[in-house]
């Protein structure tokens, strides 16, 4: 799911700090964004916009952090509005709903752990590529 890629480039202290912060940003946003998933995306998007013209290393990690939030936004938003409809409308709790919430929790938890790990490694200047998101980021960041 996650793999370390050697790059022919030694990022500076400032770069590793900023790249690591892009993950931390999404981490903090997850906590705030759990009840309102769009916050995750806004936070990482703002960070991305602020750093898109910096060095490759920073840009790459900001993009990966942003992309990972995008897919979470969809699944979390769906779960969020489903929950709201159960609380405020005649919709009832079903096995399908509980199963969905469990799937959402598993994906969020995986993302959460991966984010912490990547933030630590990136801070050390190690380049971490995620499954799927890493590939898209490679495709976007030239």
């Amino acid at each position, binding site marked *: 799911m996650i793999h370390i890629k050697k790059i022919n480039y030694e990022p500076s202290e400032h770069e590793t700090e900023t790249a690591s912060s892009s993950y931390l940003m999404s981490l903090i946003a997850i906590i705030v964004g759990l009840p309102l998933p769009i916050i995750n995306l806004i936070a990482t998007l703002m960070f991305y916009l602020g750093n898109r013209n910096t060095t490759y290393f920073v840009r790459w990690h900001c993009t990966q952090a942003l992309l990972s939030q995008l897919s979470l936004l969809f699944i979390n938003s769906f779960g969020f509005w489903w929950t709201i409809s159960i*609380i405020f409308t*005649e919709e009832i*709790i079903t096995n399908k709903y509980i199963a969905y919430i469990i799937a959402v929790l598993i*994906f969020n938890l995986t993302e959460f752990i991966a984010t912490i790990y990547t933030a630590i490694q990136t801070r050390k200047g190690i380049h971490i590529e995620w499954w*799927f998101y890493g590939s898209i980021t490679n495709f976007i960041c030239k």
Partner: protein
Amino acid sequence: MKKILIQGIVTVFLFFGTWFISAQIDWIKIFKIQQMTDKTEQKLGELFWEVLKKNEKENKNTCAVTSIDSIVTNICKANKIDRMKIKIHILTKDDVNAFALPNGHLIIYSGLILNSDSQEALTGVICHEIAHIELNHVMKKLVKEIGLSVLISMTTSNGGGEVVKKAAKILSSSAFDRSLEKEADIKAVNYLIKARVNPEPFADFLYKLSDKEYESTKYVTWISTHPNSKERAEYIIEYSKGKITEYKSILSLKTWNSLKEKLKD
């Protein structure tokens, strides 16, 4: 590009796969959600009935209670409904009204019984309310009007007087959705037919109460809360057409008359 696509598809499948596999487990049973819902409904039913009991006068006349009980028991027996689930309460009030509360409490105002031309008409109204109970319309309506969170907080914080009163008012004097009303009407006709009670007087009763003369009286709550009574009467007649023609009365004429006499007193 191909790699991204494959990885993307695998990720999507992974999510939906987790969802699908997890959905095969009976979480409702594991988390005892049904039991919790039943308990909430039970508590709500008790709360609403307490409020009504405080503000209205319950008629405990043996003849009245036994007669209505006979009607309900007969309907339940013919339709395989758990009789213990329905709790009948007759309240002394001029309003022509009947309504269902959570947990199977069925409230009938004496005004309804006195204004019913026949026992079949009254049985029709009772069947309509039993249908609301059986189809879980009461809880659906409450959740929609008040919200699940408020309902649960009502049961956990010993009511909260005004909210309970407001919710009880919603149940006694506001209509269900049009589709739910029709569903309850059709179910009521099925109940009547299975119990061999003629559904026509029920339709006639709706037609009569929707008449302008009756509409102007302030007591016809059941009709004002159930709009389009003429239309309802028509589809009840239409639906019951061609069904069995051999009908019977649940109460004897003597008992029916004596019920009305007792309520007049």
